[in-house]
């Protein structure tokens, strides 16, 4: 295990320090909540953030396993293409946007516009999620164990959205479907592997009403 204290250091120094020591070892970083764009563009590695993180944590992640002991700022796991980001606390505004792959797991609540333009990632929120979550999702999965705010899954194009609680209102181009056996076992696997205490039976599935909601 390699420990880095970010106090008084800038983004360039810290990200270079992370890259220098992720070879096969877990890197533990503390004091980074003021840095935005931490652990950007990593292809491998195991990074633990001891405390809270700033904005754009793990942006363009392409294979690293990143974990945050407390909360993240806005836009966590932005444009992720691979790897995982696990947030033990809450995620701010717009976590998991523009992702092509990888997994984002938030154990607390996630903010507005979470999972916007998801194109293939699996995003799991154990708590509640804000407004406009999953807006214009093109592929992938968004799983919310708690409740959602306004315009949930607005303008859904492709991909699957699952929710255990309620929503204020569903967005455009959505329809509610019953959970299939396949869906239920998939969800159960996720809940078991990430130790989230809920059961698939409570969940509803939301899919796109039409493939072409804009131009015929």
């Amino acid at each position, binding site marked *: 295990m390699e420990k880095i204290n970010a106090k008084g250091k800038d*983004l*360039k120094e810290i*990200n270079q320090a992370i890259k220098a020591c992720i070879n096969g070892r877990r890197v533990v970083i503390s004091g980074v909540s003021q840095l*935005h*764009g931490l652990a*950007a*563009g990593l*292809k491998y590695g195991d990074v633990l953030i001891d405390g809270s993180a700033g*904005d*754009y944590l793990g*942006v*363009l992640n*392409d294979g690293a396993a990143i974990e945050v002991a407390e909360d993240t700022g*806005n*836009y966590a796991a*932005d*444009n992720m*293409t691979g790897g995982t980001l696990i947030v033990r606390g809450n995620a701010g*505004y*717009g976590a998991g*946007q*523009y992702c*092509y792959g990888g997994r984002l797991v938030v154990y607390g609540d996630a903010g507005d*516009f979470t999972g*916007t*333009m998801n*194109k*293939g990632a699996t995003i799991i929120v154990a708590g509640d999620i804000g407004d406009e979550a999953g*807006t*214009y999702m*093109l*592929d992938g999965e968004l799983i919310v164990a708690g409740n959602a705010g306004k315009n949930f899954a607005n303008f859904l*194009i*492709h991909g699957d959205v699952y929710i255990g609680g309620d929503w204020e209102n569903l967005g455009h181009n959505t329809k509610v479907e019953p959970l299939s056996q396949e869906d239920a076992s998939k969800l159960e696997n996720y809940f078991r592997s990430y130790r989230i205490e809920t059961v698939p039976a409570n969940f509803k599935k939301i899919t796109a009403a039409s*493939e*072409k909601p*804009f*131009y015929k």
Partner: protein
Amino acid sequence: MSAIGAYCVSVDRGICLNASMPGKCATCAEVCPYGVYALDPVTGEMTIKNYNACVGCRICAEFCPVNAIRINPAESEYISRYPWTFGVIEEIHHKAQTGEYLLRGFGTQGPTPNFDMITVVPSQIASEPPRDKYREECDMEVLIGEDTCDKPIRLKLPFVWPAMSFGALSKEAKMALAIGAAMTGTAANTGEGGVLPEEIWFSRGYTNEGFSHKEWEPGGYLVVQWSTGRWGVSVDYVNSGDAVEVKIGQGAKPGMGGHLLGAKVTEDVARVRGIPVGSDALSPCRYYDVQTLEDMKHMVAFLRDVTGYQYPIFFKLGPSRPYADVAACIEAGADAISIDGLVGGTGCSPDIVTQGVGIPTIACIPPAVQALKDYGVHRKVKLIALGGIRSGLDSFKALAMGADAVGFGSAAEVALGCRVCYACHKGNCPYGITSQKPELRARLDPLEGGQRLANFLHATAEEIKILTMLSGHNRIADLSPEDLRAMDLNTAALTGLKLAGYDRPLPIWEMGNGKPSGNGKDGK
């Protein structure tokens, strides 16, 4: 403004092959993007079925094997019936019948303020004497990111290809642009639709992935675009070029995201963009992952970080509030800023937006230059003028007004063979430039296209050289507004250039107290 009903289509039946031998030839019906001609499937006879739909592109006339077609503009309509011209009436009928607004490709139609009412001031006895274009050198290099990154871009000529995506353009057109950039030492741009593998090495001048054989000297650069749709974007993508361009907007549809309709999202396009085949790829109008200018600064910081502090960061702006927008780009940390004017084109946009939204290019440059000067970075942070620039003459004027380089989007398509039919969005481009259909793409040879583009840039560069040297300079960076005069009041008023004859800027500019105000917030 609509092109409907603006042209008279006539076919000389005396020489038309179909008229004498029905069924023998149907070329006009095949190539017309608007279905002006109709072929009777039973008799094989050709008729002009829908002459009002003609937009005057003359593709049919070019393809007609016996030169039997004439297309003439119905000009008098615009004088005698304006504003209720036939086109306006047809457009209203179209909406009334279908409930749909018009979508189209390419750029703004009709007259807008442009470079034509600006003239170049040559050197005589009072100023620096002219230089000899045939016997002296002219420095046309543009260096981008000199102080901010490890690998600055050194354009051999002051040109870039603006962002045009794979998807909007065919693979062959993208490859031709990359080759054209390599042959001239300028920069290609991925656009927002992901990167084609060939673009990566072709734009640098290499024929293969291994970067082992350099075919096209001197070799150019590739700018990869980071936009609001983020199609095909990964850490490898942002590292595949020589610069990253943050797209804020574009001239044809500022305030709207890119439109790629499902008809053009083929398997190849879907793979490069990472989306399902046939789905509409509509980019959001704004960054969902940026809410404030502080966020944008952080975005620039992480883009520099993931690219190892090697490459310059570009910004691309639509024509809105050039002073405040350019100032914001400077604050965010731009190394180069492209500003695209009203006339800038696109693969697909609502007609009214292309037609009626945005500031003309000539009126964007002076406030943008003022912002750069106020921040003390003019000629350091580079300004790239886009939007309706057609020639060395237009380019020279943009450079003298204070831009460091210019870009040709529409002109590049024309150099590849385009005849401006405004149907880029339909995916049936007869020249294979904006189509994804294999049979149409086969008509565009990337090598020939690349050579044509390089020829166009070389000829245009020579034109700039002529004008630079006859006005007494041997570096394009030394050009200034003093090398230009406006030839009418409107142009002088829009640009602040000296009015020819009066030989001073208009009093409204001389009295203007400092910088243009307002960033559009709180109605100011």
